[in-house]
Every structure is written in C-alpha cells, then in structure tokens.
C-alpha cells in the first residue's frame, strides 16, 4: 500500500512534458542474472540464467546455457536442473528439474549455480499462502468511460482471509485467458499485511476484462526477503531519477557473489472465473 506515493508524486507532472534524451553512459560490467522459482505446484519450478548488458543495447539478453544448477531442500534432497531439456527455441537460458518435484510448505530451499567456476547461491523459505475464497466481477465505471484496452472494463473482485497474527507477504499475478497481464509494464502486485484486517471482501483487480474472458488470479507467498526484492524492484522500475523518489538503486537480493535477480520459494493458490455479461 505504500506504492500509493508513486501515484501521487506523479501528480506534479500535471505541468510537465518529457522528451527522449541520449545519455553518454559508461560501459557497464556484465553481471549474472538469476531468476529462480520453487513452488508447491507441479511444473512451476525453473531457473533462468542470463547476463546483463549495457543500457542502450537492443535485443534479448545473452543467455547462459552451460551452467550447473541444483536446488536442495532442508532435508538434503537435491535436484539437478538441466538446461532446456526439451530443446525449445523459446526456452534458451531456462533450466528445468531433471526429476519433476514440488516444493513443500515449511521447507528451506537452497539454489546453487555454477557459471564457469563462479558459484552463486541463494536461500529462501517456502511459506504458506492464504486461499482465495471466491471471485466475483462487476463493471468499473471509470474504466468504462475510458478503457485502457477496448471493451475491457469488468474488474474481478477477490474475497479472501488474511491470517493473523502471522506476518505475511504476497505476490499476485493476474491472467486474462491464461495470458499474464500487467496494467502498466512496470507494475508489480505485491503487499505485506501491515494494517490489513482479517477479512478482505471484494478487493478489485488492476486488470480489466470483457465478457467471455477468463480471469485467473494467482497468489504467491513471499518471504520477507522476497517482499523486499519486489519492493526494491518496483521502486527501481518507477523511479523518477531521484527528484522526489530516492536515488535509484539495485534491488536487494538473496543471491550471493554479485548476481542480480532473485531465487523465490512460494506456495501458490489460484482461482478463476469467466466474466459474463
């Protein structure tokens, strides 16, 4: 909910204009980028490895395809992750478990990545996530007046319980017809439970739907470290150059040895509804 500040700080921009500017930037040192995920859901486990590039470079990031990747849980079970085992063109840089497994709530997970002899490690704890009790939908009048996407102005309402007194952190993903959507490309939907009551009765989604659309909501549990990572990432993606916001800074991460990105252990709950007229 602290994100609200970013909304209002841009209020000042009511008198401003902007234009592209070319910056003379120093070359940046290429860094290893790790995006890893272990969940309690089958088929959701992956590690993606790539390298950072200079700011003005175009195209997708160079992928790391020759690394040794493994995930070990707190009981000592270790699973190797293999690079693109099915040789799919769109999965270069993705490492998938050699033997399929699912994360278990309450366990710790340890990632180990060996890139040309450099070792990158991370730990995360898999916390439980609250369940989505039910979904509903209604027309959003403001969005109907000026829809961002043609004809899509139904918002979905979420009903859930927030368990007290545990300290919980959440990440949400919204899908329209099984395709992941963001209202703005720099939006991240995450929250802590600070100031949240136990009953959440009809909080509306940031994504809008048309009749016939299937809406899916996924709730991920996050550790405090995960929350901090997404909070930092959100601040970085929406930074105003340090004028009213703090100076941009890289996200804090659980990865060692200077790698950027995050290794996340999450429990997932999801719910779907088809919007009807």
């Amino acid at each position, binding site marked *: 909910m602290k994100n609200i500040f970013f909304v209002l700080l841009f209020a000042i921009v009511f008198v401003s204009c902007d234009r592209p500017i070319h910056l003379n930037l120093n070359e940046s040192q290429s860094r290893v980028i790790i995006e890893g995920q272990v969940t309690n859901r089958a088929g959701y486990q992956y590690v993606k490895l790539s390298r950072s590039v200079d700011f003005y470079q*175009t*195209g997708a990031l160079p992928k790391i395809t020759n690394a040794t990747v493994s995930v070990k849980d707190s009981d000592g079970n270790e699973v190797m992750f293999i690079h693109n085992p099915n040789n799919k063109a769109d999965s270069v840089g993705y490492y998938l478990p050699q033997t399929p497994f699912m994360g278990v709530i309450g366990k710790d997970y340890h990632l180990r990545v060996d890139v040309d002899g450099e070792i990158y490690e991370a730990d995360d704890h898999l916390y439980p996530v609250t369940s989505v009790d039910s979904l509903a939908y209604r027309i959003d009048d403001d969005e109907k007046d000026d829809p961002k996407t043609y004809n899509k102005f139904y918002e979905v309402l979420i009903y859930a319980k927030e368990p007290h007194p545990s300290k919980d952190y959440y990440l949400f993903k919204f899908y329209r017809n099984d395709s992941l959507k963001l209202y703005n490309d720099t939006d991240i939907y995450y929250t802590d439970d600070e100031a949240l*009551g136990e009953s959440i009765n009809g909080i509306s989604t940031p994504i809008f739907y048309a009749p016939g659309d299937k809406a899916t909501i996924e709730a991920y549990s996050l550790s405090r470290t995960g929350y901090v990572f997404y909070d930092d990432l959100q601040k970085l993606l929406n930074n105003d150059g340090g004028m009213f916001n703090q*100076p941009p800074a890289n996200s804090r991460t659980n990865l060692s040895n200077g790698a950027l990105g995050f290794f996340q252990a999450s429990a997932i709950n999801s719910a779907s509804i088809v919007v009807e007229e």
Partner: protein
Amino acid sequence: MIRSFSLSFAVFFLISVVALGQEKVTLNGYVRDVSNGEELIGVTVYIPKMSAGTVTNPYGFYSLTLPKGTYEIQFSYVGYAVQTVTVDLQGDVERNVDMLSETTVMQEVTVTDKRVDENVVSLQMSKNTLDMNRVRKLPALFGEVDIIKNIQMLPGVITAGEGTSSFYVRGGSADQNLILIDEAPIYDPSHLFGLFSVFNADVIKDSELYKGGIPARFGGRLSSILEVRTKDGNNKKLGVTGGIGTMASRIMVEGPLVKDKASFIVSARRSYVDLFLRAANNDNLVHFYDVNAKVNWKGNNNNRFFAAFYSGRDVFNFGNQFGFAWGNRTATFRWNHLFNERLFSNTSIIVSNFDYKLELKDPVQGFKWTSNLEELSVKNDLSYFINTNNDLTFGYHITGRRFSPGRIAPNTEGSMFEEVNLQKMYALDHGIYISNQQRLTDRITLDYGLRLSIFQNLGATDIYEYTDPQDNSRPVRTDTLHYGAWQNIKTYVNLEPRAAARYMLGEGQSVKVSYNRMVQNTHLIAAGTVPVPFNTWNPSSPYLKPQLADQVAAGYFRNFKDNMLEFSAEAYYKSMKDVTDFADNADIFFNQDLSTEFRQGKSYSYGLELLLNKKEGRLTGSVGYTWSKTMRKIPGVNQGQEFPANYDRRNVVNIQAAYDYSARWTFGATFSYSTGRPITLAEGKYQFQSYNPDIVTSRNGYRLPAFHRLDLSATYSPRKNEGRRFKGTWVFAVYNAYNRQNPFTIYTRVTKNKDGDTIGDGYTKEARMIYLFPILPSVTYNIKF
C-alpha cells in the same frame, strides 16, 4: 535551574562590563516608517561626532548609551531618506524616530546625500536581505510573487530545479534550513509540491537569510535561517491591497484599531484552478490557501504586544476517490518589554503544527492516513545595550515537540484495513545563549557568543533493540525498552560557539570573518532530492545522532560610487558530521523499523560567492556568482565511497534587474544559469520475468544538462492612478522567455511510442528528460486603496 545559570552568568558579565562606564545617559526608542507605523529593522543609527553607533534590533528598537552632551544623530535605512535628529542628552531620553520611504517621497528620482553603507560596516556577513520593493518588480512564475524563488537566486543558495520550494544553502540539505514566519517554524514551505511557497508576498515586511556567521540567538538547524517577518498593519489609516492573478487571488486589509497605538492586518490568498476545473466539469480538484493575521498593541515603548497567526493548506481531490492535503498552522504571541532604557526583552510563545492526510475512498480498499508534528516554544531574548561599544544579547529557548509519524485507519465499514499507529515520539529542546557585540576600535568590531543546546528524547515510547540495528532487509528485534511519559530516553548536549569579526580597511571597504557551529536535532525523513509534504520528521534518538556543522567564512566587502554599488566576495568551508542519510532502497513511509534505514555520515562543502548589488537609482539589481562543491561520505551508501550531494551544482550565475523607466512603466528581468544537478543513472540493464530493470552503479555519477532561463516582466501604473486613492497596476510577465527545455529529472523506460505502446523488441530502453515550464506568459492585476 538552567535558566538561573544563564541569568547569573549574564549578570556577572554585565557587571564586569558596566563597571567600566562613567557618567552616561541613554537615548533609546523605536524607528518606524512614518506612513504606516511599521517598525524598521536594521536601521543604522550613527553619531558622526563619536563615529559610533548601532542598528535597530529585530523589533525596531535601538538604545545608545553616551556621555552627556548634544548630539546630531543620523538614522539611515535602504529605501528611506536619511533622518538627522539633534538631541540634547542631559538625562535618559526616549526618542521614537519616523522615517520617510523614498517611494513615498517621489516615484522617479531618488536623491540622498548619504547612502547606507551597511554592507561594509555591518558586522554580519553571509546574510542576504530581500528587498521586497525590488522583488515585486521582478518577473514571477504565473505572476505569483514568491520570496522563496528569490531566495533561490541568492549567492550560496542552490535550487534542485524550477517549480520547487526547497533550497540548499552552502552544502546543506533542504531540511537544514530553519524557516521562520514571525518566529514560528514552517516545516514544509510548499504549495502544489513546491510550485509556490507558503509566503504571500503582500503581507511580508522583510525576510533575511543567514548562511553563515549565524547569531547565537538562532539554533536548531545546520545550514541557514530564513527569517520572514510579516507586517504589523498600518496604524495610521485603513488600507486594502489585492491582486488578481493567473493562479491565485489575494486580498489584504490593514488598519488602526487605536490610531498610532494598535493595528491589525488580515491577508488571504487562494488559488482558483479548481474553480475553472469545476466549471469545466472536471472533478479533479486542487487548491491552496494562506491566511495571515496579526494584531498588535503598542501602547507605549515599555510594553508592546503582538499576536500573529498563519494557516495555509493544500487540498487535492481526484474524483472523490482519492485525496490528500497538507498544511502548516502557526501562532506567535510576543511581548516586547523594556526593563529600562538599556535592557530590552522579547518574550514569545510560539505554536506550530504541520500535518498531512491521505485518503482513499473505496468500500474495500478505503483508508485514511494522517500524520502531524506539533511544537510549542517559549523564548526569552534579552538585549542589554551596555554602552556604545558593547551590545549584549542573551536568552533561553525551550521547545517541546510531539511527532506523530503516522496513523492508518479504515474509513468504511467494509474496509480491509485495520487501525495501525506508528509510535509517537517526544522531544524537549533547550537553548541557552549569550553573545556580545563589541566595538574594539574604530576599525574592529567583534561578536562572540556561545549557545548551549540540551536536547532530550523523551517517552512515552518503546525503543526496539535489534541484533543488527542497521539491517533493514530483515530487522530482528531482540528487546523492547518501555519508557513512560516524560521519561528521559537520550540526552544530547552540545556547545555551539559563534564568532564574527569585521575589520574596516578604509573608507567603504572591510574584511569580515566568522565561525559558527550549529547542531540539528530534528531530522527530515526524506530520501529524495526534494522533500515532499508526506515526509515526516524524527527527533534525535538512540538511533539518530544530532547533526553537527562547523563553518568558517571570510569575506571582502566594498562599496563603490558613494555606496551606490555594493560588492562582496565570500569564501566558506563547512564540515558536517552525522548528516542524516538513508540506506539504498530505504522504506521511509510508514515503517515500524524506520531506525534501521538511518545512515549518518560526513559531508563537506566549500565555495566562493561573489555579489554585486545596486540598491538605489532607477536601475536596481544584482549579479551573483557562486562556485561551490559539496560531497558526502556515508557508510553504507555508495559502497562507502564519497559522492557528490544531490544539490552539488558547481557554477551558478543569477542576474536580477529592475528598471523604473517612467512613472508608468517598470521593467524587470532575471536570468539564472547553473551546472546540472548530479543524478544517478543506469549503466546497464537486465530482464527479470517481464520486467526490464536498470543496473545502477554509482550514486550521483552523472549530471543533468545545465539549467538556464530568462524571465521578463513589465509593471504598468495607469495615469489615472495619480491623485486618486484607488490605485491599480498591471503586471505582465513572461517566464522562460526563450522557451528553454530545462531538465527537471531523467527517468528510463522501455521504448514506447506517443500512445504509450511498447515499440521495438520490448527490451530496448530509452532515457527521457522531464522538463516543466515552456514559455509562460502571465498577467496580474493588483489593487491598492
């Protein structure tokens, strides 16, 4: 107990100095403007026969102790005709002097036989006084005359960008300025996020900025004191002043309650963009207002009473769903008392309150967020005019503060939120000071003093202990210490020496040096370059040390052409300890473990400031140039490496000019140039999920392009104004005359087209520069009757 200590010390000091005197008598009184009875501050009172003198104090009072005899005494003040008074001094004499404003005398030409040489003679250095008459002739953004925008053009002062009300003095951050209106502190001087300041120019009598050599009577902030005083109200006749501008309209009424003895003034200003928006059926409503009011009773010279009040607020509403507001409210009660003709006392009781609120109106996500800071101060300042060579000032200030950093509460039945309060914090701040201004010889004048700051962080509060108090990623509390109401948590005691000296080199030339130590115990929790009204303040505490600054400054002052031109060159070096900064990615809003985000470190700044000022004649104006450098070194920020402060601008040039062309037309122009502000930019980028974040390497490793802008104005007084009571003037202004796109900030995004749709491969990023104001013409109509 502390008080009796200060008094006995003072009394001891007095006795030792007074004992040197012989049979002497005292001349004292107030100096006022004849047309409205306003006291004049800083008037030079000079006795040619003795080549000695004094200046009126901040309340317009002077006192001179002299051997018996007949004296010719000159009273001189910028913008006023010199007044010469002959006094036969056989016993103590009370003499109030009324001075005639030159603008009252004649509009076009000013002739004075002797101009004021305060620039050279005065002991005070590193101080700038805004000439409100000139300020009114200069161009202003949207035609709203704004003293903060003028403060930002002074040498030694840096601005973060146009459209902001923050200023940075000699390497200090925005929260290191003590901004006072009638002695009451203003915690956020901005309207509309800084487009305008809270100071309505109509009601301002004078404003002074102290950048160095700060007198011992001031304390509490590291870098500067901006002292703004409002008018007392005309005690001769009723008057109405007003203005209709592009953004806001103003009205001010002043007049006597009892002629020559008591007067009042009420002034109000309100912006009316929202009225247009409402007319246009737009339900996004924004407005601000200011109300200033003052009454005074000046029955006689021995007892004078003033009560001043200020309230200002900004209110934003977006379609009845989301709204926020902030504002300052202050009240000052002042009692000026003469114990005798040489001992002047000012006692003030001051309250100040800053608050903000945010509200989201929604059946589920609705909440109300409020925060405020309240303070109550009692001050007693005494001036003892010992003799023509020594003026002693001493006093005691006590301030209590209550910080309520935040409360979130649901505002509907079905809200998903529940009430959460951040802990309140309490502090008690004592300041005891004494200082003596001493004329050692004809050439040398000294001021030396000491301020003792005793700061207490008090309960009721819980203080958390952490395994690692600097771990902001995963703060782990190990213990909670409960403190009851008024229970002392932490005390910080600091001695602040202050010293200044002036040496007259010859006619119209002097050299001045000064040293001051300043201590700051209230810290703004803001991690950006420009504070926003939603930032909160914290007291010094077990986790936040007082900030400390030592500054030395030296200057050469010279007047030319019979004091027509004033020149000054000042160099300073400032070293700051424990300046408050924040960890990268600090979470400064509504954080229960805020103390884990604090990072304190060192900062230093040095610079050279040149100023040429022409105060009189048809053409008035100034040319200022500043070179300065400000660096910070904060453990835990920028890998512990030194980095330029956000407001480190190396070269700054400011030119202001006002020209009285005829009785009808006055023209004004201002030009500013400054090196671009440091900025932290991305050097690399990567992909994570669908996001394309930047990689940032060094804090403030780059600079924005340079800033420069020319503004023009013309003020027209129609011929029909002559000889009638109602006077109307038109002010035409052009802001940013050559339409420069001045950098405000730079942000990055995935490359998009005009409609905001991603173009290219979705991975390519672009940097975009935000600029605020294109060329902006404005018209304002001012009335006076």
